[in-house]
């Protein structure tokens, strides 16, 4: 049992003395902390989503037939968001090109893709559905987008579907007269990948052979055809150097004279602009909240100090030194700020977790939200707490000074 009174008990007693007003102050601090914390949390989560997206946007190069102008899926004005799959095209080349690419130093992975067709499948998607064939054994661009990793590579008769395509995992969908089992669903990409069905290359050839799938005006798809080969460089390799090597390997071969190598020239501009707008808005709101809250809290602190003049006089008559009175007022504000900060962070964390679980953050931010790691959440919470405690101490500086300078005799003689 404590033998002496401690400051914390006294400060909490002071706070409990005016519960209504102090709750309002705590609410102010909580609001600021929640604002700061959720701002950081959303930014970090969105950035995490982007980072995850970067790892998903695996290809560094795209090898395509030279005939067609390539537009990369999801591209903004620079056509360069990422290479997950090539733009639908009926220009094809033979998959044997993979053997050639495989000999190029600096290439760590390569995977072919085949665009089959774009179909109106209203039962599956409001937008036309693109059908792509991929090699599940070598694919490194589509698989990372899966909401849940597959236990095994895609088996015959299985498909992966974009975010917009209807159907749960393990249910069956029909494309033409073929039926497939959904093995996995992809996270939202904000691109036409969202309404794409990916199936195995052999299934793609089989589907392409089905009547009504490939338009009669398009060249027939024959086994071994591919539209593009997606290439990932080895870690540490210079993208341009590897790209040049790939081009050079084709230049000496008449079979691949009409093949182009496109580098990623990777930027995240379109997404980044959206994401950057969010922190800017949140920072603006936070700044506004702080600007409004600081004088409000300062005013409350002045009121508190004024109301407690007699109490402060009493403390001084008991032997409280100026600096003790000064720090008591500051600490009381800090305790209120800490309570408010913890409450604000706690509530916002709970709400954000809940929103994330419901997928609300994904749709609100229009990116794949990635929960920040615990350590990062901890530092964000710490920062929010530091900021509100900073506000609390700044707001109470003047009343603390006034209280410390108060003459105890004058204070005691006030009517209570």
């Amino acid at each position, binding site marked *: 049992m404590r033998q002496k009174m401690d400051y914390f008990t*006294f400060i909490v007693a002071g706070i409990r003395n005016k519960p209504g007003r102090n709750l309002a102050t705590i609410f102010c601090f909580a609001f600021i902390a929640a604002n700061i914390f959720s701002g950081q949390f959303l930014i970090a989560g969105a950035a995490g989503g982007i980072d995850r997206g970067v790892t998903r946007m695996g290809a560094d190069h795209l090898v395509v037939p030279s005939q067609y102008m390539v537009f990369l899926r999801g591209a903004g004005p620079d056509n360069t968001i990422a290479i997950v799959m090539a733009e639908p095209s009926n220009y094809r080349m033979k998959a044997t090109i993979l053997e050639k690419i495989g000999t190029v130093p600096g290439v760590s992975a390569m995977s072919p893709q085949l665009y089959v067709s774009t179909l109106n499948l209203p039962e599956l998607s409001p937008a036309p559905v693109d059908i792509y064939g991929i090699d599940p054994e070598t694919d490194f661009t589509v698989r990372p987008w899966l909401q849940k990793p597959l236990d095994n590579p895609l088996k015959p008769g299985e498909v992966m579907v974009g975010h917009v395509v209807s159907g749960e995992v393990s249910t069956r969908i029909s494309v033409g007269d073929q039926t497939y089992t959904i093995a996995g669903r992809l996270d939202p990409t904000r691109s036409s990948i969202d309404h794409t069905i990916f199936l195995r290359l052999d299934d793609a050839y089989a589907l392409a052979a089905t009547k009504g799938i490939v338009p009669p005006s398009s060249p027939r798809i024959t086994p071994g055809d591919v539209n593009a080969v997606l290439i990932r460089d080895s870690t540490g390799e210079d993208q341009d150097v590897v790209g040049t090597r790939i081009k050079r390997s084709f230049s000496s071969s008449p079979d691949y004279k009409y093949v182009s190598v496109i580098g990623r020239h990777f930027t995240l501009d379109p997404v980044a602009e959206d994401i950057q707008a969010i922190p800017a808005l949140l920072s603006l709101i936070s700044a506004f909240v702080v600007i409004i809250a600081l004088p409000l809290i300062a005013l409350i602190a002045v009121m508190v100090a004024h109301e407690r003049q007699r109490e402060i006089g009493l403390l001084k008559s008991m032997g409280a030194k100026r600096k003790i009175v000064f720090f008591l007022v500051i600490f009381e504000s800090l305790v209120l700020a800490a309570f408010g900060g913890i409450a604000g962070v706690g509530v916002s964390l709970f709400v954000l977790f809940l929103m994330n679980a419901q997928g609300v953050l994904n749709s609100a931010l229009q990116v794949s939200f990635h929960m920040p790691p615990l350590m990062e959440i901890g530092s964000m919470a710490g920062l929010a707490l530091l900021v509100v405690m900073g506000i609390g101490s700044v707001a109470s500086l003047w009343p603390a000074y006034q209280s410390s300078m108060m003459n105890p005799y004058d204070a005691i003689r006030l009517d209570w």
Partner: protein
Amino acid sequence: MIESKGVTKSFSTTSSDVLAVNDVNLEVKPGEFVLILGRSGSGKSTLLAMLAGLISPTAGVVRIHGTEIGNLSEDKTAEMRAKEIGFVFQFSGLIPTITALENVMLPTLFCPDGPGSRSRAVELLRKVGLSERADAYPGTLSSGEMKRVAIARALINGPPILIADEPTGDLDVDTEIEIMELFKALNREGTTIVMVTHNPDLTPYATRIYGMVKGKLVTNPESFCFRTWKAEPGTPVDTD
């Protein structure tokens, strides 16, 4: 123990200067129970505040244990208040959100190396007859009980001097007697008490009595009338 020499205090107002205390010479010896009687506005509370180092005199000196408090720094004066002086005011000044026991322990915050402790607080509450109410909150205590808690609080750091500013001013007669009996007991145990009051009925409890009239300390209390407050210092006794 407490000594004032030529202590004067004047306050400036917008219209004029008010002489609250005028050239007061007082010496309180250890173990005394000094009662200063005076009507409202006579300057007795101001004198008490100067004796305790809460305010500085305009002129004159105050010494406690031979130390001139006017020469002490703000912090040293605060230390002296924490260790040497216990205050009891007309208002009890208890913190409503902590228990009676915690209220008694409150001054230990400012005198960490003093004798004040929880066990001493319990003992003091027992001494003031409130051992059963140690865990009670001030809101549940009567005026007399609150005053007794305030007295226990004033004594927690073991001060040799107890200064009381109209401690019974707002109490009924029975409670007033209880409190005064308590003061008397404390004085018998060695606590030096300086108390101001406007109630002449309390004089029997004191070992020395002074009067305060218009800022002047009157050394012969028989020389003025407490009932009518008409007399000036030095006038013949006119008791009714």
